């Protein structure tokens, strides 16, 4: 069986868009917000979380995160 060398497509060396630290901070914030909307079942914040939980109830079930 012959082996064929696949011609290498020269991908130009590209400078990445630099993602500054503050952008990652915003990502962390966004992740935390999703946590409160979707995953907080009173594990950290008890009663206040329960109110949020009930308010977002349908959306939570729909996204498939565990619910009471």
């Amino acid at each position: 069986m012959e082996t064929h060398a696949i011609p290498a497509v020269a991908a130009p060396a590209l400078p990445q868009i630099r993602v500054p630290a503050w952008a990652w901070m915003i990502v962390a914030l966004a992740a935390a917000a999703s946590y409160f909307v979707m995953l907080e079942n009173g594990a950290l914040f008890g009663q206040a979380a329960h109110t949020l939980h009930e308010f977002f109830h349908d959306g939570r079930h729909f996204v498939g995160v565990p619910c009471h």
Partner: protein
Amino acid sequence: MRRLLGIGALAGLAAGVASAVFLATVGRGPIADAIALEEARAHAAGAAHHQDLFSRGVQEIGGALGLIVFGLALGVVFAVVLAAVGPRLGAVTPMGAAVRLGWVGFATVVLVPFLKYPANPPAVGDPDTVSQRTLAYFAALVLSILLTLAVWRLRARLGAGSVAGAWATAACYAAGLAVIFLALPANPDPLDAPADLVWRFRMASLGGLAAAWAALALATGTLLTRWPPTGGAAQLAGTAAAETSA
């Protein structure tokens, strides 16, 4: 970068709206049936009608709002991750890069956790095990993300175009999935609702999430093409387009 975040937020909004529309149309029926079942059961058990914190109408609005907030957060994360890994996705256009990342994201964040812990409608679920289930779900999510990152690295190391590399990468991903599925505990709750109802709900849930991710990827790709952020959208795609625009 700022424009990129704006694009992410806008695309996330589109994703949130797409899933909210899906919830209001396809998801509404199974959820209503499940709640009716729940109440009929509580009634039969002789329990006093428990006072709900919010009415159904408010919960429906809250549910849609929750999906939109969630979509917004997801959109921002998606845009930043796209900026970070875009050039390495091997796509020619920003739309191509966004769609590729969309597939990877959907499989990693939605499909794998769903296969281990499928969504359940309101009638299913024991309140006493909710912390345990939340933790397990979170573990599945985090492990799935870690696995994708690890396999991504491996793929880069083996050479993205090589045949043996592709097989090895797939084999490692499969092995990683097997470990995740076997290591995590099963859902402790009994599945005591009619299977038909449960699966109608699950398919609606998965459909809503697929609609959200499709909207997210397509909207991000469209906005990046129309309003390239500083540095050039071509950089996000990474190949030929960058040369022409450089």
